[in-house]
């Protein structure tokens, strides 16, 4: 068995997971049981295929093995019930009757599965875990490692999520037209959460964590293939590509945080930038603009600037203006203030921040202190800048960010001490 063949098998298996799971759930109607059976089939494939070669129809092979496991399971369950109750009215025949009758090719299955895993009755963390396992085809151990929790914790989370779906009684089918738009928002949110978790967790070179952001991008590509006309799907994929492109430049050799304006842009992934820019440009020209598209457009403006000074801030300001009208998120308003500060000078930015001080959702958030510190520094009020850098450092929950903010405060204090 070569490394290469093992690697291709793994990719293929992950590609096939949602299709197989979709097909088996569709036939048996029991998502939880189907999920367990598919996991067993995947394990069998991982053991057999490298030794015996790829079957002619890998997808059919997996569906067949999973279906056999599930009928075996139902049969033993049935026998148990027969022993326990005389009036066992469970008929294996009726289940066998449906096996093989459904069309092998159900292209929508992956999509139905994604809608199911991102069900509104699940908490965000449960939806994330279930999506990674059922649609992404990752093992529970891999997901647990990525989120730095014990495997048993993640297993419980996934099992509870399956139970919630079962008790909520959602059928394995596409949401109705009325529901669909709202459900798609949840799906996109879950994919973006996965991306963010990966993007932040892969910070620094010492962290050996599975690349969740790559997984989110892979799922985003799959979703785009299934829903090519949904502009926000394309927007999210572009946003992830354009953000991920900057990842190599985000941390220094000692794992320290490097802000956007100080990054070595030669390290940015030009392939991802090219793809993201092309995608968002094509999508924006079609109309029906949404928040993911706007964020992608902003990321594109940053990524297209060869140096920090060449950044087209007026355009970024205009885009944040649009985004602000579309969403009530105080973080958007905060970023709008940064952009305004870049275009119209730090005093304008500081005036906008004053209004944000009244927003309870941002009260005491380190970001507002950090932004204020930057603006005060640019305005030449160094004492106040030091004070706000320190306040921000005290409030952040991120170690590299805290170190960055403390370093800024220390740098300014020294400037003050030595004089201009």
């Amino acid at each position, binding site marked *: 068995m070569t490394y290469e063949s093992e690697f291709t098998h793994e990719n293929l298996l992950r590609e096939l997971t949602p299709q197989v799971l979709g097909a088996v759930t569709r036939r048996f109607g029991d998502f939880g049981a189907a999920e367990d059976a598919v996991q067993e089939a995947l394990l069998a494939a991982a053991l057999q295929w490298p030794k015996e070669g790829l079957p002619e129809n890998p997808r059919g092979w997996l569906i067949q093995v999973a279906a056999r496991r599930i009928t075996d399971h139902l049969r033993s369950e049935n026998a148990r019930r027969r022993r326990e109750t005389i009036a066992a009215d469970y008929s294996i025949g009726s289940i066998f009757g449906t096996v093989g009758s459904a069309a092998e090719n159900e292209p929508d299955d992956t999509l139905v599965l994604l809608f199911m895993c991102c069900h509104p009755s699940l908490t965000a963390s449960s939806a994330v875990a279930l999506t990674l396992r059922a649609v992404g085809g990752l093992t529970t151990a891999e997901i647990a490692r990525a989120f730095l929790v*014990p495997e048993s914790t993640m297993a419980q989370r996934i099992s509870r999520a399956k139970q919630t779906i079962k008790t909520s009684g959602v059928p394995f089918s596409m949401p109705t037209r009325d529901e669909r738009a709202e459900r798609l928002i949840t799906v996109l949110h879950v994919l973006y959460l996965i991306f*963010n978790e990966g993007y*932040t967790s892969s910070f620094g070179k010492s962290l050996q964590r599975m690349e969740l952001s790559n997984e989110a991008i892979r799922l985003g590509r799959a979703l785009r293939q299934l829903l090519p006309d949904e502009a926000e799907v394309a927007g999210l994929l572009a946003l992830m590509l354009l*953000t991920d492109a900057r990842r190599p430049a985000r941390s220094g050799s000692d794992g320290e945080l490097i802000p956007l304006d100080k990054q070595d842009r030669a390290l940015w992934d030009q392939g991802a930038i090219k793809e993201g820019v092309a995608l968002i440009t094509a999508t924006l020209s079609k109309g029906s603009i949404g928040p993911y598209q706007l964020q992608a457009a902003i990321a594109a403006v940053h990524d297209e600037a060869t140096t920090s000074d060449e950044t087209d801030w007026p355009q970024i300001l205009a885009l944040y203006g649009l985004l602000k009208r579309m969403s009530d998120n105080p973080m958007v308003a905060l970023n709008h203030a940064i952009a305004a500060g870049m275009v119209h000078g730090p005093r304008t930015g500081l005036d906008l921040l004053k209004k944000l001080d009244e927003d309870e959702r941002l009260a005491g958030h380190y970001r507002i202190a950090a932004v204020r510190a930057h603006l005060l520094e640019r305005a030449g009020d160094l004492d106040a800048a030091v004070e706000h850098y320190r306040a921000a450092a005290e409030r952040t*929950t991120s*170690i590299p960010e805290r170190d960055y903010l403390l370093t800024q405060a220390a740098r300014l204090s020294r400037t003050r001490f030595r004089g201009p």
Partner: protein
Amino acid sequence: MKFMLMMNAPSGNGDWGISKWSPEDLKAHIGFMKTFTGGLAASGELVGAEGLAMPAQAKLVRAGKDRRPITDGVFPESKEFLAGYWIVDVDTPERAYQIAAEASAAPGKAGVPLNMPIEVREVMSAPPVEV
């Protein structure tokens, strides 16, 4: 987001006077803690939990000039001590506070809730996505 929930018990050797509780009260208290932690494991929120030995044998350690440990202690007079902790992984701070409140209400003497102070601290993480 992960939080550490630290259960603080007051007074040096006080340990809630736990050694003077009736066997029934003690059993109820231990049973509560087992069920409580078991519930967190079952909901997929528990990252870790430990109970710490009583502070009677606690030592403060510093490195000396030769880097060998210099120990100090015992501290019978300290007002509060860490009795144990949980680390949970939850979606919101509010959920962490809710869990802490449940732990705080662990039964004490005659089943009366102890309402112990539980210090809730967020565990540091990687920096967020920049925009």
